[in-house]
């Protein structure tokens, strides 16, 4: 088991490979680890940077509460979620999700489930800095449809 918190928000750029290595270490009964890394897109020059605002103590608590439900639903051994906040440049990692389970199906599905929720319902406020100024972004219809698959 890792000594890290299961959910963290960070202003610092993080290295997904290092997180995955740490998450995988020291497991005897986990047969499957699935992971997902979300990166900030440049949108062909339309996005100079992304800015994510969180409410510390509220956002991380909401993510942890949801992830604990996912842990029960999919019978996970463990999970790890790291989410960037603040200003994020194209190409940088925004989110890392890893799930550990006895077998692969649960690990894959739980990772997908967590990401659908994080993308559509997690308490963040997102602003895109583009060449023509800044704009606040709301979840896309596709994000909502993806999340509703699990309801």
């Amino acid at each position, binding site marked *: 088991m890792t000594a890290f918190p299961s959910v963290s928000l960070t202003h610092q750029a993080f290295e997904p490979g290092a997180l995955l290595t740490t998450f995988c270490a020291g497991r005897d009964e986990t047969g499957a680890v699935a992971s997902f890394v*979300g990166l900030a897109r440049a949108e062909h020059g339309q996005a100079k940077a992304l800015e*994510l*605002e969180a*409410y510390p*103590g*509220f956002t991380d*608590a909401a993510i942890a509460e949801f992830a604990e439900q996912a842990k029960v639903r999919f019978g996970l051994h463990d999970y790890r979620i790291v*989410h960037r906040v603040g200003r994020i440049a194209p190409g940088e990692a*925004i*989110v890392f999700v890893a799930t550990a389970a006895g077998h692969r199906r649960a690990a894959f599905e739980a990772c997908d489930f967590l990401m659908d929720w*994080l*993308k*559509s*319902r*997690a*308490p*963040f*406020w*997102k*602003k895109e800095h583009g060449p023509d100024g800044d704009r*606040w*972004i*709301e*979840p896309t219809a596709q*994000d909502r449809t993806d999340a509703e698959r699990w309801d």
Partner: protein
Amino acid sequence: MARVLLFGRLADQAGWRERSVEAGTLTALRDALAAADPDLAEALGGPGVQVAIDKAIVRGEATLAAATEVAFLPPMSGG
């Protein structure tokens, strides 16, 4: 004194993110904010704006103790 926090577009509109306001109830707090900035008060009561008191979502009226944290949360975007 309640500690008022604004997020997302609400903070942009107000031009501040955090402020102390003297108010004993949520209604009194909204009134105090409206006196200073009517447009902001309207936005705070707009569709999809949720209120969290000490990091728990509340609906309707609430009593504010000293040092209560009141956050106005516009529709969340996801990560």
